[in-house]
């Protein structure tokens, strides 16, 4: 029976063996998702571009973005098609890895929550909560250290940005 240090997925994703297992899938699956998403993005710009007033003559306001959208659509289709071909051939061992996916998801959630929090409760409380939570997610578990780092950063914000640079923080 193999021990944790021999976990091949942890080694591939550069994650410590005693940590949570990484998320893994074949790179072609990632290419399929990225190709489809970028194609949809290009399609959206192409369709919405049709509603833009193109002006009187020559290359109008809609022509440039629609031209770029067309090229991006073609390029993302090539990415998608290549991924399908390689999946069908099954000739690659390259993997897409996300180490500690739960931590990354928590980091994303914190980032998404920060702008509305800052709008509603102001910079200092929002940043204090955000930093404390992010430090915890990033493995800093000593409450004293968390308080010290957060206080230090808030003092830095106050002195450098508000007092020296005269940038008001809400």
């Amino acid at each position: 029976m193999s021990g944790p240090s021999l976990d091949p997925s942890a080694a591939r994703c550069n994650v410590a063996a005693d940590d949570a297992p990484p998320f893994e899938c074949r790179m072609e699956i990632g290419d399929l998702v990225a190709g489809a998403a970028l194609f949809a993005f290009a399609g959206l710009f192409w369709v919405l571009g049709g509603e833009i007033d193109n002006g009187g003559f020559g290359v109008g306001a809609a022509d440039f973005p629609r031209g770029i959208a067309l090229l991006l659509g073609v390029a993302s289709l090539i990415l998608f098609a290549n991924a399908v071909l390689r999946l069908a051939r099954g000739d690659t061992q390259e993997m897409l890895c996300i180490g500690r996916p739960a931590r990354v998801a928590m980091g994303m959630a914190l980032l998404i929550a920060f702008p509305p929090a800052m709008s509603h409760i102001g910079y200092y409380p929002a940043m204090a909560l955000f930093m404390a939570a992010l430090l915890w997610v990033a493995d800093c578990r000593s409450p004293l250290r968390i308080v010290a780092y957060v206080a230090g950063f808030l003092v830095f914000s106050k002195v450098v940005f508000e007092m020296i640079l005269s940038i008001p923080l809400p």
Partner: protein
Amino acid sequence: MWDGFLAGLSAFSSWQVMAGLLGGVVIGYVVGALPGLSAGVGMALLIPFTFGLDPVVSVVMLVSLYMASEYSGAIPAILVNTPGEPSSAITALDGYPMRERGEAGQALTLSILGSAVGSVLSTIMLIFTVAWMTKIALAFGPAEYFALAVLGLSLISTLAGHSVLRGIIALLFGLLLTTIGTDPVDGIMRYVVSDGLLGGIPFVAALIGLFGLSEVLKMLETRGDQTTPLKDLPGLSAQFGLLKPHTGNVIRSTFVGYILGVIPGAGATIASITAYSLQKRLSKSPQTFGKGNPEGVVAAETANNACMPGALAPMLALGIPGKASTAVLVGALAIQGVRPGPLIFTQHPEIPYSIYIALLVGMPFMVALGLFGSRLWVRLTTIPAGVVTAMVCATCLLGVFSESNDMFAVSIAVAFGIVGYLLSKVEIEPAPIVLALVLGYMMESNFRRALVMSGDDPAVFYTSPIAAFCLVSALIVFVLPLLQNFRSRRSEGEHAKMGGNPSKV
């Protein structure tokens, strides 16, 4: 000329001028190192403090701030993959991998020495060629600017890593994003789903999101209680020796930076990418670019700092500010009753010559601060990764807000951070997106203006010698690596038939 130099030198005998120079260097160092705060913002914030100062003190302080912030953007780029200035995004390509190998000190040393030599050589070129270079800058019309932007974009193959297709996708994605906002020619709104997008995607927010916040998410993938083992730096005198093997690179990058700096609007980012690309082509180990090759750090940093004296040429000789920072400088001089332009050399000779002397005299201070700093800043890498992650993230968010005073920009940075992270997972890197964000507006607006001015005659792009030269160069620069790539894939394919793996598209 010598009378002007003497007037400038006599101004430097006053302690106020020297204090202004030192103050400007220190403030510039801090402003440039904070993501979100650019040289232009730092100078604008300093202007109210210069009202009561002598014009020479005021201009010396602002110019030394400008010079120092152009360099110090490299510090966060190397240490935490978050460029302090847009042009430092190119420095991060090799600087950050060097830091991951424990060579942060070497990368910081090379960046300050390259910056110093580039800036000094470029200042000397500025002194002797200011009038002549300005004539070249004046020859640039919409067709030439469009061709220059195309040349810049053709360098994509340098940034695309091992997959040109992914590089092109990143570039097109970035170009599409630049079309959001008010149309540059007719003023028509395009894809404006929120008032915050009227002026387009906020560039600094996008830059910080793509590099800084996406890096924060990458950092969360590994244990936060780990530190990077640090390789020892040589003694102070031996630190200077680190640049010696890069002499040719420094000279080439200085020329590139100075010439592109003179052209209004071209900017340090194009200079950095052009010098980086040129060095990659001339290097004996081009395959290590983007993986921590010191030549990449030297090329990018030398060029973006050599660009800065170049940008002063059209400002001094014609009164045309080529970029935001020089526009602020023109404003500061106007407040003091000094109008840049041809007459400045006869009416206020002490001003241009004080600028030249400030650039030359300020450099030793900056080098001293940089070399000392390189020993101090690298200690950051010995702090547990989790703490660095939180600090970088908080600084990025604060920097974005302070640059725009707008919560919408913070939301944009977060969106770019997450999208940049997800795209990097499928090896679509942020550097080509940033290149497109820098050049997209310039390309579209000048393309359409050139056609409007020529009555929709496309001949305007090949009848102008400068435009034709740039477009032909762009074609060569873009097609050659594709051909090389095609050949190497064919040979790899032949090897694969004998048991190897095919390369990525």
